């Protein structure tokens, strides 16, 4: 039972941790691209957006418990938290595809 709970706790924070890393990475790439005038700035930002969303999609589709293990309150919560993290990622990162990146 400890293993199920441990896994659920890790999954509970996994989605939003990925979201946070993606958020910081995109903000940093936006600033660096503007400071050093990267020619492929938009493409890099969109690429980073996709790279951030892939693990979020994986986590949102992942079954919270392994075969034969009982689902707990925590594992169901983890699934919903990860789906929320995916929605947050799609919404917050979307502007990198169309908004002007530099002043």
């Amino acid at each position: 039972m400890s293993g199920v709970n441990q896994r659920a706790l890790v999954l509970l924070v996994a989605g939003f941790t990925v979201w946070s890393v993606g958020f910081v990475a995109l903000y940093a790439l936006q600033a660096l691209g503007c400071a050093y005038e990267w020619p492929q700035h938009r493409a890099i930002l969109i690429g980073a957006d996709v790279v951030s969303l892939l693990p979020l999609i994986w986590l949102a589709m992942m079954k919270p418990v392994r075969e034969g293990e009982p689902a707990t309150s925590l594992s169901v919560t983890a699934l919903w938290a990860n789906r929320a993290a995916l929605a947050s990622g799609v919404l917050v990162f979307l502007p990198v595809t169309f908004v002007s990146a530099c002043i």
Partner: protein
Amino acid sequence: MTDPIRLHKELSAIWGTPGRWGRLSSVNHTVLGKRFMVVALTFFAIGGFLSMLIRAQLATPNSAFIGPEIYNQIFTMHGTVMMFLFAIPMFEGFVIYMLPKMLGARDMAFPRLTAYGFWCYLFGGSILIIALLVGAAPDSGWFMYTPLSSRPYTPGINADVWLLGLTFVEISAVTAAIEIFISILKMRAPGMSLARMPLIGWYMLVTSGMMIVGFPPLILGAILLELERAFDLPFFDPTRGGDPLLWQHLFWLFGHPEVYIIFLPAAGALSTIIPVFAQRTILGYRSIIAAIVAMGFLSFGLWVHHMFTVGIPHLALAFFSAASALVAVPTAIQIFAWIGTLASGRPRWDIPMLYVAGFFCVFVIGGLTGVMLAMVPFNTQAHDSYFVVAHLHYVLVGGFVFPMLAGIYHWMPHISGRQSLYRLSVPAFWLIFVGFNLTFFLMHLTGLMGMPRRISTYPSNWGWDWLNLLSSIGGFILTMGFCLVLADLVLQWRFGRRYRRDPWKAQTLEWATATPPAPYNFAALPRVDRRADMLEPAEIGPVLAGGTGYLGFVRDGEQETLGVDMFTGEPEHVIVLPRRTFLPLWTALATASVFLALLFRQYWLVPFGALLTLGMFLLWPRTLGRREDTGPVDIGMGEQVPFDVESKSNASVLANLAALIMNGTLFTSLLFGALFLLVIAPNWDGVAPMSLPLWAGVVAIVLAIAGAALSWLARSRNAAGGEAMPWLIGSAVAMAAATVLLVLLMTLVPDPTGHARNAVVFTLLGYGALHTALGALMSAHGGWRIMQGYVSTRRSTEMTLAWLWCFYAAAASLLSVAMATLLSAAA
């Protein structure tokens, strides 16, 4: 058969606090929680008094009541006191008092740290208030923007009071954060898995996690600004390669999560109170946990919405605008869960519910104006106007003060053992509710009419007169309401009617203690077999008081409680907590000497104060631990577990891990600052490359890595039953040598006051040197504990701690030197 009276007397003798001067030695969480709350409420009264002066000044146009200089100090101190000296310590006090009782433990994980945190809070807060009384209070606004707060524009000690006083106070916040985090994970009643924890446990777990990563940026910012003010290192001076925006980033990286750090504990109180009065369990337990986690993360992604008008690209505006609006969703999930709980239950109205209703009205308005301000075009219009003042008061008073008052009325019987007579509480509520809305709703209008915040007066022909007058009248009505609440609480304490256990028919464990509670909380610890907000305290309480349960006895006159598996809540080890001592008080006084020496610019005294503080801390563990392996011991209920010193995942190891994560966040903020200046700050063109000897940096890194490897070897040798001492000595020597080299490199940095690049390199190397020195100290401490006989193959905590700190020091010195090298080449 246990004799309950005898057990009570024996436990009270061990856990109790003596009278007279002995009270100052208390480390008991019940005593310290109450002290925190009383001091926080005293600061609240001071902050409230200041707000009266503000409203008196603004009541009429062209007012000459206090003048701009004093007014600047008063509004700065009002914000500072309310945010730092009232809101956070108030919830710390509540949690320190309540958490062990709710989770089924006898105290917090580190009682002496609780006491040390309290003294730091009291002393640091007193510095600020004394400065106010002598007219030297901070006057640059509660967020202390540079360059206004820099030495040329604030030359006195006013800004230093803020930076040093608050950093002193923040010690209590960071110690509380670690303690709350570890106590929740390790000190629950047996059987209380994470999935059975009451929701307030989840709220506090996330809040303490947020504090662990949220406070370090502010602490770093305060250190850097004080270094600039005291030693002229130009981190924020744009003429020498610094940037005032770095201060804003560091401040708001803390400042926005801070709002949620204040709101989440209050929401935890609501999630506990509402089911009691709805007479049903909370709706959406799992959704609320997911919402808390989402809020915990999303709240960090909003900090730039305080900087929408500083001139940043559209893309950054879009990021932070979207995240700012998005955080309303998990907030709304909780609000709908609370409304649903009330709608599907059988609500009974009582005083706490009045304040819950007040919360719903006020906080929802604050949330809606928050979504408005998250939108960039509207924000640009309303920025730094009274609309923002109105919004933040609706959020903070709605989100913290109203739930706090609900909580006070709900839990006061637990503290006092008496229930309110309710003669004054109803008019008090209406005065507060009406007074608050009269004061602050009108500020939305003055803000929309263009009145900027922080002005000390205004002309009479701009249409703001009657709105300000009504706001001021509302403010005085609000104060009358708080005075009535105070009178009501005093009357309750003195004349309230006594009651038997669990007056509200709540279903959480704190009501299973005696009221007022005994210093040990539970004569025996319960086993929880269901979700811990569905218990029957009135039935459990007498059973536990009779000594039936875990640890329902006294062993060797020690303060014992249980440590459990973090996930399942199964008993794992017996935690022996330290007894009362004056050490935390002396250590806090030693710490105060450092801050006072800095404040009065007696810098030669600082190293003595720092060494005295360090020496005091080294005295703390001298009698902790055991000199022999004991193996599993009886804990009652037919079960046996070992003592904590023989457990690998004990609270000390986890707390040090948490402290290192906090430290790592501070270091990451420093690295971010270095990169920010390199990429964004003006006046970096044409700076000559710096020629630091590369060999010294490389050798320092190699020595630090060798020190970490030797400490790992010491740990492995100890685990295998071998001799660890030589490896620890080697580790300490290697770390000390690395320190010497890094200090040597610091001396070679050309004029750190000349340019921000030099100042940052100097600071980075200083950070690395400090941590290799700490690594050396931890290895030496491990050796000292071996000599004292506190370490064996099974008792290996000190070996693990030495390895953790040395590993961190090696990583920190590697990154420090790497970043310093990168900056050295910048031109």
